[in-house]
C-alpha cells in the first residue's frame, strides 16, 4: 500500500508503520525461506543435530522468528481501530503470532525422554527425573504381517502409578499415546519380543499451537470469502484490462 489508509491515522511512528508493513515483511519472509533451505541442506549433508545447532536453534534464527513476530504484531496493531472487513486479516496474523509464540514455548519448556523397559520392569520417578509417576511394563505384544517378519503393529500394556499412589493400566500403541496429567506416553519402538521403547513427553506449547493453527485456517477461509480476495486480487485486473485494451488483438480460443 503506497497511500496511507485512514485507519493509520493513529499516532504511530512511521517506523512502526514500516515494520508492520508488507515492505518489511516480504524481505524477512524471503530471508527466512533462505535460512530454512540452508537448514535442510545442512541436515542432509551433515546431520539433524548439526542443523539444529547451526540453524534452527541458533541466536540469529531466534532473532529472525522474533522479527516475524514483531512485524505480525505491528501489522495487526497498526490496523486499529479494526473493522469488520479486517476479521480474516486479524485472525490470520494474530494466530500466526500465537503459533510462533507456542513454538518458542515448546522450544524452551518441552520435556522428553525415552525409557526402555523389558516386561515386568519398572521405571521409577527419582529426584533427578522430572517425571512425576512410575511406569511398569506389564505386557508387550508385536504382530507381524502374515508369513513375514515385517512388523505390522506393536503395543504395550503399562501400569502407571502417580505420586499419590493411584495407579491404572493402559494399552499404548503406535499413533495412540496415553495422555495423563499433561504428560504423554508413546510407543516409540521395540527391541526383540518383550522389550518396549517408550517415549515420555510434556509440551506446554502444544495446546496454544493447536488453537493458533485452527484459527489460522479459519482466518484464511474468511479472507478467501471476503470481497477483496474473491475476484483475483486487488489492483491486478486493472493492469491487465488496460493492457488488453492497448492490444486490440482478440483470439477465439477456449478450452
Amino acid at each position, binding site marked *: *500500500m*503506497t497511500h496511507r489508509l485512514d485507519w493509520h491515522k493513529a499516532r504511530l511512528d512511521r517506523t512502526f508503520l514500516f515494520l508492520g508493513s*508488507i515492505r518489511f515483511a*516480504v524481505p524477512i*519472509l524471503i530471508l*527466512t*525461506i533462505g535460512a*530454512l*533451505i540452508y537448514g*535442510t*541442506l545442512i*541436515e*542432509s*549433508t551433515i546431520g*539433524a543435530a548439526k542443523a539444529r545447532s547451526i540453524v*534452527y536453534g541458533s541466536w540469529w534464527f531466534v532473532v529472525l522468528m522474533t522479527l516475524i513476530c514483531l512485524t505480525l504484531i505491528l501489522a495487526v496493531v497498526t490496523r486499529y481501530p479494526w473493522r469488520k472487513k479486517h476479521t480474516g486479516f486479524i485472525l490470520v496474523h494474530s494466530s500466526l503470532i500465537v503459533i510462533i509464540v507456542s513454538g518458542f514455548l*515448546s522450544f524452551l519448556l518441552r520435556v*522428553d525422554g525415552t525409557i526402555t523397559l523389558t516386561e515386568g520392569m519398572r521405571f521409577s520417578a527419582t529426584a533427578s527425573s522430572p517425571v512425576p509417576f512410575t511406569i511398569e511394563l506389564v505386557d508387550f505384544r508385536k504382530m507381524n*504381517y*502374515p*508369513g*513375514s517378519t*515385517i*512388523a*505390522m*503393529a506393536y503395543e504395550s500394556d503399562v501400569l502407571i502409578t502417580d505420586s499419590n499412589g493411584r495407579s491404572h493400566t493402559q494399552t499404548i500403541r*503406535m*499413533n*495412540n*499415546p496415553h495422555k495423563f496429567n499433561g504428560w*504423554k506416553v*508413546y510407543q516409540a519402538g521395540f527391541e526383540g519380543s518383550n522389550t518396549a521403547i517408550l517415549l515420555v513427553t510434556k*509440551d506446554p506449547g*502444544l495446546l496454544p*499451537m*493447536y488453537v493458533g*493453527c485452527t484459527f*489460522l*485456517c479459519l482466518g*484464511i*477461509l474468511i479472507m*478467501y470469502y471476503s470481497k477483496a*480476495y474473491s*475476484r*483475483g*486480487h*486487488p489492483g*491486478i*485486473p486493472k*493492469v*491487465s*484490462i488496460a*493492457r*488488453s485494451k492497448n*492490444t486490440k*488483438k*482478440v483470439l477465439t*480460443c*477456449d*478450452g
Partner: protein
Amino acid sequence: MRWLSILLVALFVFPISSTWAMTSEKIGQDWKTKFASIPIQDRGRTMPMDTFARRLAVEITGRTNWSNGQLSTGNSRRDHIDLLADLLFKPEEMLTEPLIPIGRKTLKVQLELDPSMMFFSPRELMRNDKLYLFSSELQSKMEHNHRYRPSPDEKALMDAQKRITALSFFVAGKGLAIVPVTGTDTLARAGFAEADSSALHVQLALITMRETYLTDGDMDTAVDRLTRTINSIQAHTPAVQSKINLELLYNTHNPWRMAVIATFLAMLLLTLRWIVHSRTISLLVVLAIIWAIAEQAFGLWLRVSILDRAPVTNTYEALLWIGIVAIVCGVLGQLLSPRSWYLAAGLGASLLAILFAMLVPIADQTNSLPAVLRSNYWLIIHVLTIVTSFGALLLAAVLAHIYLIKDVLLHHTSEKSDRIIVQIYRMMQFGVILLTAGTILGGVWAADSWGRFWGWDPKETWSLISIMIYFALLHARYVGWIHDFGLAVVAIVGFLAIVWTFYGVNCVMASGLHSYGFGSGGDIWIAIWAVAEIVFINLCFVQKPSDQ
C-alpha cells in the same frame, strides 16, 4: 437431461464390461492363467501368483516381457509366468541365460563385459572378479561414511547386485509360499529341496508339475492337481479369493494405462474441437473424459479393496491421486466457468501425473505398510489433504504454462487472459489452504506418533518453505510488486518447491523421517523437467512485455 443419462450409462457400463471381458478371457484359459491365480504370500501380503511373478521378473530383468533381440532364442517373447516357471523348474539352466540388464557402458567397461550386450547371465556376473572387487570397495566406502553418495556407475553396480540377489534368493529359496496352514492366514513354503509334513502333498504336486514342464507334457492337468492339493488342505476364504480375483483383474485390465489412453484421447478431441466446432466432437470429448475419470476411479477402488488402506501411502499412489485431483478439479472448474482453461489444464496435469507414476518401480507400488502408517484415519486426514493440494497446485502450474506460452511467448493476449490469471489464482488459493491445513494436520499426527508437533524434519521444513513462497507471492502482489506475469512465474516456482518437498527431500537429500515406501524411479526425468522449467521461465522473462 440427455447428457446426464449418457453420463450415467457410461459410468456403469464401463466397469461391468471390463469385468465381463475378464471372465470371458477366463473361459479359454490355459495353464498359465490358472497358475497365475494361485494365491501366494510375499513380504507380508497374500497376492496372486501373477503379481508375484511380475515383481520377480521386474526385480531380475527390469521388465515383465522381454523379447530383446540380444537374448538367446529360448527367452524371446516370454512373459513373467514363463520366467517364474523357468526359474522354478530349471534353475540350473537359467543361471547361464542372459537375464540381468546392465545399461551403463562405463560400468560394463570397468567390469570387462561386452559393452554392446544389454543382458548378462547370472553366472558370468557372479564369477566376475572385477565386480566382486568393485562392490567390496563400494561396501567399505558406504560403511565408512553413512552419508556416502554413490556415483552413477556405483548405483548401476548396486542395481545389478540387487538383481543377482533377487534371483539367487529365489533360486536358492525354499520355494513358493502357497501352502495354507490350517487355522491361520499364513501360507507356508513348498519347494523341491525340503518340505515339512504339511507341505508334502503340495511338494509332490510341484514335482509332477516340474516333470510335466520339462517333458512338455499336459501342464493343464498338472496345475489342476496343484490347485486341488492346496484346496484340500484348507480352501481360501471367500474374502481372500475375491481379493485375488480383483488383483488379477487389476493386473490384466491395468486401469492406469487405460486412463492414460483415455486422457490422451480426450486431449486430442479437445484440440480437434478447438479447430472444428461440432456437436458430435463435443459429445465425444465428454465421453472420453468420463472414460478417463471412470478408469481412474475404478483403479482407485480396486487398489483400496485389494490393499485395504487409504490410497495414498507411497509415491506411486500419491501420484495417482494427484492425477485424479487434477482431472476432477479441471472438470469442476470448467463446469463452474464454462469459458475457461481448467479442463485442458486438468487433462494435461492428470496425464503427467499418471505417466510419472508409471516410472515408479513395481516393488514399491504395493508395499506392506510400516506400523506407524497403519492408520487410515491419519492417512486420509493428513496425506490425502497434502496430496490433494499438490494436485491443485499442479493444475495452477499447468495453467501458468498456458498463460506464459499463449500471452507472453506468442503474444496472443485477449480478454480471456485476465481470466486465466484468475483461474491460476483460484487453484493456488485452493491448493494453499489445503497445503497449510495438511501441514498442520501432519504436525498433529507427528505429535501423536513421534511425540512432537514440529521437529524441523526436512519434509516439514520444505512444506513450510513452499507455503511461505506462496504467501510471499500473496503479499508481493498485494503491494503491486508483481503482476500477472509474476503470478504465473510464482505458480511454477512454487510447484518446483512442491516437487522438491515431495520428491527431492526423499530421493536427492535422502534424509529425514518421511521415508516410507519411496521408490527411486525417474530422478533423471525430474531433473530434466526442472532444468527445462527454469530455461522456460528465463525465456519468458526475455519475452515479457515491459509493462508487466
